[in-house]
């Protein structure tokens, strides 16, 4: 379990580093997806570890509830990708840039 938390945290921090340092919109998107994948990994690890403490009948229910939650995470991740990529393409085609430093119209 320690290893799972350790590696999940490393992957999450790498994704966070990518989100905060990259200028390319698509790279920021990939880094955000790395963060989501790490969060999924940690969630599943905690779920599997946590359900091992209860009896088998309760364990199946706990696992099913956790999987329902993970299913929703997947659903919204895909919705995020489905909206995010057309937005990226729209910005790229209209502004002819994918550098976040050039996309400063809302700075005020």
């Amino acid at each position, binding site marked *: 379990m320690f290893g799972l938390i350790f590696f999940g945290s490393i992957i999450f921090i790498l994704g966070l*580093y*990518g989100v905060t340092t990259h200028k390319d919109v698509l790279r920021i998107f990939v880094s955000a997806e790395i963060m989501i994948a790490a969060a999924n990994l940690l969630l599943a690890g905690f779920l599997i570890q946590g359900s091992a403490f209860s009896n088998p009948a309760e364990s*199946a*229910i706990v696992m099913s509830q956790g999987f329902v939650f993970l299913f929703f995470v997947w659903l919204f991740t895909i919705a995020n990708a489905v909206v995010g990529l*057309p937005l990226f*393409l*729209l910005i*790229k085609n209209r502004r002819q840039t994918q550098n976040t430093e050039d996309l400063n119209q809302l700075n005020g």
Partner: protein
Amino acid sequence: MLETIALYTLGILASLFAGIAVFSPHLVRSIIAFAMLLLAIVGFFAVLAAPFLALGQLVIFVGGLIALLLFGVVFGRNEDVESKAHMPTMTMTRFFAAGFIFIILFASFAGSLSTGASAVDFGAFSIMLFTEYWEGLLLGVFGLFIAVITAIFLMEKE
């Protein structure tokens, strides 16, 4: 013992691929490294005796998300891709990548299936999803529907 070694090996590989995905200067390689990271996570789930999660991750993330990202690169005509379009083919890298995918998928699924361990009751999961959590499911599917409509609307504006 074997399970612990597999988990730590997968963890090191996943961290390595996450690093390549973040630090690689070539965008397509970055996305391929991200796909490898997701495959390592599939291996994690399979070793943890959760084949449903592994298959879901494989289909939704490795299949859907990577295809979407690569299409995003192709249609976005990324500068990184154009400037390095004539790179020599790296047969050995492809060979090792294919070998890695095969070993991860075969070993992890064979390991999880041979123990007979299935960490979830699929019947209970399905019943729970459509009875206890039907509001959430409805909201999620509605959100996905709106996302698809928005995507079509955004693409039609071009």
